[in-house]
């Protein structure tokens, strides 16, 4: 393998991170760290503020507190969003979509020569290479998820942030993603992933953080993911601000 041994992703430190949106307290006093080159999962109930926390990290939210990224060898962030507001009738193929994401020029100009092989490779990694001429709007939920994943791989990220990437994926898709993430981790990429399947989290995460407005817990999955804690978090009574 041609893994550059010195490549390394960033560490991330959330310090007393809070977020208010429209007078509502979404996050408060969130404190945890993500180690470089690890797979770090964020779990928590729906509406707990996981997506919001990730968007804080991407600099898209008016958060308070400090978010520090200690960059390693590169500073590329790949982001795989939870969903995409996308007009299904838009006449755009998978390839057009990738062109739109990867290049600065308009998608109707086509995919640049330079990006052709890169996009090809990314689609191959998620098992979508045969469907590059399909209309993007006509893809199934799982297929769309795979394309979103492929998009997050261009350019090669040092930090990959994924918001519930497993949603809608079938067994084959989930296994492709697991292999892909394992491969990326081997290359030193830091992976921060929101996930709702606790079994998967236990399986692949190096560390896990539970968010429900506040930080509920953060640590190694074997230690933190006890049945009592999980029951506590996902029962109706939520956290407080």
């Amino acid at each position, binding site marked *: 393998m041609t893994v550059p041994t*010195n490549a*390394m992703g960033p*560490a991330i430190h959330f310090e007393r991170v809070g977020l208010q949106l429209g007078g509502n307290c979404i996050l408060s006093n969130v404190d945890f760290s993500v*180690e*470089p*080159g*690890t797979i770090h999962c964020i779990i928590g109930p729906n509406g707990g503020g996981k997506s919001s926390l990730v968007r*804080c*990290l*991407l*600099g*898209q*939210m*008016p*958060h*308070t507190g*400090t*978010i*520090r*990224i*200690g*960059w*390693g*060898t590169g*500073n590329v962030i790949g982001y795989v969003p939870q969903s995409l507001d996308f007009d299904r009738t838009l006449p755009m193929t998978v390839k057009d979509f990738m062109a739109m994401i990867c290049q600065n020029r308009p998608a109707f100009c086509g995919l640049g020569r330079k990006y052709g092989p890169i996009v090809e490779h990314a689609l191959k990694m998620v098992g979508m290479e045969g469907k590059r001429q399909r209309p993007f709007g006509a893809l199934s939920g799982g297929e769309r998820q795979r394309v979103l994943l492929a998009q997050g791989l261009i350019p090669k990220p040092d930090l990959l942030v994924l918001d519930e990437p497993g949603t809608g994926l079938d067994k084959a898709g989930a296994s492709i993603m697991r292999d892909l993430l394992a491969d990326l981790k081997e290359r*030193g990429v830091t992976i921060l992933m929101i996930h709702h399947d606790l079994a998967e989290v236990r399986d692949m995460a*190096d*560390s896990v953080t539970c968010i429900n407005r506040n930080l509920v817990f953060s640590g190694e999955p074997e230690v933190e993911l006890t049945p009592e804690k999980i029951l506590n978090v996902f029962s109706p009574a939520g956290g407080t601000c």
Partner: protein
Amino acid sequence: MIMGRKLEDMHPVREEFVRPCNGGSETWWLIGCALLTLTICSLSIGVRKANVQSQSLHSWQLNAFRDLRAEERGTYSALYTAAIEIDDTHQNGDGEWLEVSDMEQDFVPPFVHDAAWRRQGKLVWQRKLLPAGTLDMALYLGEPQQKEISGSFLLVMQHSHGNGSGHAAPSTHPSHEIWYSPSPHPRLPASYTDQALITSGWKEVVPLRGRDEIMRTKGENVS
């Protein structure tokens, strides 16, 4: 993650603080743009030279709204509308000019003897056709029975077959003109050129349009 820590220690770490996106700069950009727009607008308002073009009337013309009495204005407006009707009939019909009696029967003001007609000085109308062989022209002369209320009106209908020669007004010549004389029994000239009418004591009545009125209220006076 001892492994990870070690790696982190081995590399020079560039630390980045994620800046909250609270739209602060956008607010300032927006305020800036608004101020810039306001500045440009106010500057250009000041700089813009108002295109003062006062439409000056000639000494032989009257302002329909300023120089006529209320009753006369009524007659003038009715005549103005009737002229369009007369012209229409002339062009679309067999070249005949409408008879005064016809218009009276068809309730066309100011020819019909209605309440307005009585209020406006009871003008007696007659049609005069120019002798054949000359210009295709018709005159409608209205003389008041009550000279303290209204003067006389003369509607000059001209079908513009060719160039309307002999007219003093330099602008595009309308197919009809309305002339006014303060006399209840005005003198009619031998020929109906503008010049002849003027020397007989007639004055052309010129209407003001909405634009003229706007200019008048803005102080760009129409003399």
